[in-house]
């Protein structure tokens, strides 16, 4: 994995070049956000649900060892093999070993971000183990050899015409199909024989239930239920933070998840696995991969509350106008920007700056993660660790000194007003001002608020104050 900082702004600019893609992406995600709002508005208990979800997750994270032990004990009692992986590499070796022990070589897989995080396909495929993604969006991304663009809709950055070209190459369909129905049908027809012949099924999972040793998979296409149940071997990979204490707690999360994600009351399939099927074998791999370290970070541990609904992505103006590919990571958007730096602070040092700080991500988050506060805190951490580029760093330092001193600030503002009025464009719009690349600087104002206040209100306010005192 390259360690160079992801050039987010540059990649976003590439994505924005094509108007139809830019327009669709923005509209589609905003539509998901609006559908989420409609669901929220018809449920008076929405805020109480968010509060409960947040408290349950915080409690579970604070007591993680105890609940992990409880889950493991109950799952083992139900006949599930439980494995532990410190990192992605260990996870991939465990999967490889399970397959080798069975003489298996083909995995049919439903969507799971965590196996992407572990780079499992990249590890297994050179070893002669085929991995076929069966979720439509994830399959499109696999065929195009790209990371998922979005945690819920992995190929949201593509248009029908893009998918038609990809399918033509691999499924030999007409490259000019412009009907999504025909393409979805092509995927169904291509997936069936693979599903029927796969020897190992793999899924991720949305929740682990400590009380019963079960895990829950929420999907819409039905591919997870096929992938898990067709072969006699089912392997599920989940992060250690996925726990909830009690079966009864699921109600809170299931009611929030799909409403926050897509604005639908629930996913088409909400599947609960508690035991291997008759004659089958079931393995659960619990993955740490940096999570235990993140849990110890005062400012950032609550990011582990995330249930991967993608609501923060749909609402984020920067994400909607830059596309998931520009984040260079499995997790993109605001949530990606606060968890990716825990995997690699240098590589993902640009991402916490991909935000306007409008706070909308925090407001829509169903588990109340203070995402925009964490974005801000990451900027500070990265600046302290010298992970931000020279120009940005120096300008921030200058701005910091200026903003800390009211007299200097006012002097500079009046200077700026003169500059904006009189300076030639090449002085105002240059490489020191990337902000001005796509925007016009504000028009200079005739009078600042401060000078207006001084002239009109200061004496009167003083007089008023004295009157009240008397």
């Amino acid at each position, binding site marked *: 994995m390259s360690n160079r900082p992801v050039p987010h702004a540059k990649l976003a600019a590439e994505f924005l070049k094509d108007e139809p893609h830019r327009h669709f992406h923005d509209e589609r995600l905003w539509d998901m956000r609006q559908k989420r709002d409609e669901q929220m508005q018809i449920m008076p208990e929405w805020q109480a649900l968010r509060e409960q979800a947040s408290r349950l997750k915080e409690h579970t994270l604070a007591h993680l060892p105890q609940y992990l032990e409880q889950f493991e004990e109950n799952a083992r009692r139900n006949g599930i093999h439980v494995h532990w992986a410190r990192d992605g590499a260990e996870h991939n070796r465990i999967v490889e070993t399970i397959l080798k022990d069975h003489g298996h070589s083909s995995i049919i897989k439903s969507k799971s971000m965590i196996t992407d995080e572990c780079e499992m396909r990249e590890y297994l495929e050179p070893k002669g183990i085929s991995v076929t993604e069966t979720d439509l969006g994830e399959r499109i991304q696999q065929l195009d050899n790209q990371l998922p663009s979005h945690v819920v809709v992995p190929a949201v950055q593509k248009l029908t015409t893009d998918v038609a070209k990809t399918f033509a190459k691999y499924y030999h369909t007409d490259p000019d199909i412009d009907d999504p129905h025909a393409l979805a049908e092509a995927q169904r027809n291509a997936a069936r024989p693979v599903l029927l012949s796969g020897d190992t099924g793999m899924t991720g999972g949305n929740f682990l239930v400590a009380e019963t040793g079960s895990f829950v998979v929420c999907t819409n296409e039905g591919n997870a239920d096929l992938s898990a149940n067709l072969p006699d071997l089912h392997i599920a990979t989940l992060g250690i933070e996925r726990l909830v204490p009690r079966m009864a707690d699921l*109600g809170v999360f299931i009611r929030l998840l799909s409403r926050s994600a897509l604005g639908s009351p629930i996913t088409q399939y909400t*599947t609960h696995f508690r035991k291997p099927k008759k004659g089958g074998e079931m393995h659960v791999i619990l993955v740490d991969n940096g999570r235990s370290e993140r849990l110890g970070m005062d400012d950032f541990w609550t990011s582990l509350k995330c249930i991967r609904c993608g609501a923060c992505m749909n609402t984020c103006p920067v994400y909607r106008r830059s596309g998931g590919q520009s984040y260079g990571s499995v997790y993109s958007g605001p949530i990606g920007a606060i968890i990716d730096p825990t995997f690699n602070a240098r590589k993902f040092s640009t991402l916490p700056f991909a935000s306007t700080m409008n706070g909308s991500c925090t407001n829509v988050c169903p588990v109340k993660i203070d995402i925009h506060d964490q974005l801000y805190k990451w900027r500070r951490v990265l600046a302290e660790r010298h992970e931000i580029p020279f120009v940005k760093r120096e300008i921030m330092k200058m701005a910091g000194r200026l903003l800390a001193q009211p007299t200097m600030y006012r002097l500079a503002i009046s200077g700026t007003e003169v500059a904006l009025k009189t300076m030639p464009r090449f002085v105002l719009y240059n490489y020191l001002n990337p902000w001005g690349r796509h925007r016009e600087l504000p028009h200079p104002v005739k009078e600042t608020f401060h000078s207006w206040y001084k002239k009109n209100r200061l004496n009167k306010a003083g007089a008023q104050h004295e009157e009240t005192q008397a």
Partner: protein
Amino acid sequence: MSEETMMSARDVIMQRLRAKKSPQEGAYPLPPVVTLGDQDASPERFEASLALMGGKMLPLQEDEEIEQAIRRVFPEMRNLCTAVLEVKGTLRIEELETHEQADKVDVMVVRAAFGVAETGGIFLSEVELKDHLADVHLAQHLIVLLSKDELVGNMHNAYQERPEFRTAGYGVLMSGPSATADIQGVLIRGAQGVRSLSVIWA
């Protein structure tokens, strides 16, 4: 060799988690179980939710048997596979010997253990499916028999009241047919699993 390399992955992870300073256990007590929102468990609410999720109701006509109604809706059907006693069909689910056979099933009939009014969801486990877990998803269309007496209001009620979540090895709540919106946001009913899901009150 460092201490960590000698230990099992499980012990290392547990040790890391126990060593953490934040979040402190005492600061985050377990909140009590909640039951929030509308708990209306009426068939009307179920029907409205099912429609929203893309499922259909299949009302029986006067003096019509269930099997007649299915044949009326799917006149071109060749293989009708049944997991219920009320419908004879062309073969029983227990008779499916291979998944390839199930792949050729046009219509599958099952009885749900219960339904959820909030989401139009119906619950199926290995008990209702006679251990044919994948075969139900391979069929092209699904008919679900559901009793009006087996409805819960919302998802809180479901998890608190229904014993199946603690007894079933495999339990799926299906709300409508399989669906996807992965290509340019166009909603398509009938992605990889069943193309349609219809409920009959029975």
